[in-house]
């Protein structure tokens, strides 16, 4: 029983990271029709932000905020430098641009910082654990869950209550009409990127806090899972991205925990098989995007 609860906590913790990353991908896709392959590098950049801040002697909480800020700046810079000029281009052209951005950044990380993992030393208390009854719970996963839920609830409130949030939802439905009403396109797009950067930065925060290092590929693998989550949830659907993130996280943790060792090399294959099976039944994902027909 304890084991099951612990695995459940791990699943929510990992799912929360995937959900934040998937939501960042979905919010940009829903508005700009860009599948941002360089999203992982935004997360990695956030990780290096934390690393550098710690190197310069900034206390842990400050360093973590600097990391999140760095990710937002990176997301906005990416939009300005690479994607703004491509606005209105077709999905394939945008996708290939984002591949290029991703590769360039990875090479820069390797050459300017290090191809190997650099350590992030956070207070030892953060990697300890506490007990509730018979259940031992890690501080890392707890932080991860709290941060993810705060981010998801906060974003949902923003999208529901703030006028800019409403404009984001409207843009996902019919961006041209929104512009015809006088809402500035560049502002909506910049906000979408800023939010995706903020979420990637928070993912970097919980990821590095639990793993204690950053390397050039840090963001790549979790974002790959987040891609799967967005497709599973329904491409362009925000609720779907969050749900997909938690489902992928849960399947991954459960296969790790309960599968016999002999089958563990097939873990990713099993996760993907589950996704394919789901898409065969629901081709538009678990919670399909409402619109998207109009470009």
């Amino acid at each position: 029983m304890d084991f099951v609860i612990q695995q459940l906590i791990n699943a929510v913790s990992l799912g929360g990271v995937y959900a934040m990353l998937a939501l960042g991908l979905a919010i940009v896709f829903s508005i700009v029709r860009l599948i941002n392959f360089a999203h992982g590098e935004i997360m990695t950049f956030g990780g290096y932000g934390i690393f550098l801040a710690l190197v310069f002697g900034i206390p842990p909480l400050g360093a973590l905020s600097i990391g999140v800020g760095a990710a937002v700046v990176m997301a906005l810079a990416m939009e300005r430098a690479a994607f703004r000029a491509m606005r209105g281009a077709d999905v394939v052209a945008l996708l290939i641009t984002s591949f290029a951005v991703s590769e360039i950044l990875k090479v820069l990380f390797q050459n300017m910082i290090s191809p190997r993992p650099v350590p992030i030393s956070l207070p030892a208390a953060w990697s300890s654990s506490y007990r509730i009854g018979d259940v031992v719970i890690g501080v890392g996963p707890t932080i991860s869950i709290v941060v993810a839920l705060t981010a998801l609830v906060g974003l949902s409130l923003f999208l529901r209550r703030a006028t800019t949030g409403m404009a984001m939802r409207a843009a996902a439905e019919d961006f041209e009409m929104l512009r015809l009403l006088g809402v500035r396109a560049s502002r909506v797009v910049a906000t979408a990127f800023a939010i995706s950067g903020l979420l990637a930065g928070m993912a970097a925060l919980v990821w590095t806090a639990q793993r204690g290092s950053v390397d050039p590929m840090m963001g790549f693998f979790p974002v790959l899972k987040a891609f799967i989550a967005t497709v599973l949830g329904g491409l362009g659907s925000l609720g779907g991205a969050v749900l997909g993130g938690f489902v992928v996280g849960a399947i991954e943790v459960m296969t790790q925990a309960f599968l016999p060792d002999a089958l563990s090399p097939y873990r990713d294959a099993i996760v993907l098989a589950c996704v394919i099976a789901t898409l065969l039944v629901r081709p538009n994902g678990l919670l399909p995007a409402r619109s998207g027909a109009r470009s």
Partner: protein
Amino acid sequence: MTDAVLEVDALNIRYGPVHAVRGVSLSVSEGGVTALLGANGAGKTSIVMAVAGARKIASGAIRIFGQETTGRAPEDIVRAGVAISAEGRRIFASLSVEENLKVAGAVVPDASVEVERRVALMERFPILGQRRRQLAGLLSGGEQQMLAVARALMSAPRLLLLDEPSLGLAPQMVDRIFDIIEELRSEGISILLVEQNATLALQVADRAVVLANGAVAASGDAQTIAGDAVLREAYLAA
């Protein structure tokens, strides 16, 4: 035509090999209503969208309040005093009625003016007030059209572009929409009205332009066009 709020001059629009709009000129006078008529695919919507800044034009010029706006972004054209109720209404279905108005209110610089305007519009169209928390996608066609017009009015335009406001509506609702058009005109808002219902459009309009295959087939005084039996037979099917 020095008092024209909108002048479209020798406009050409191409979509790849398709020459959708061919040398069209038209104007809307201050406080006037110009009806833009013609069959489906005649190029009416292309012209309206070009005026609103949402279509690239191949050649020609568009002047709004005497200022050349060719090539300007839709956001800037709204700020110049032009609003649109687009073809197909294009309300944001997943937003509530009030959220649709709030989003459109983002152009109003003063927040208290924005609230006043929103409240006034929900009083003016009581059905929108009653359904302000409902998802706009759940409104009937006529209610959605009212929302589309109300949303356009949030920017307090001096020139309103109405693209097929009566399309697909029940007869009663069509009358209501035309009443609203009359009201807006009496408030001094100039209107470019795209309609397939030529009979009603010609009753509210002072000028009319008839398009066929992207080119002007006839233009002039609305009454003259309405009285031209040959024209009605050939292009307006009414």
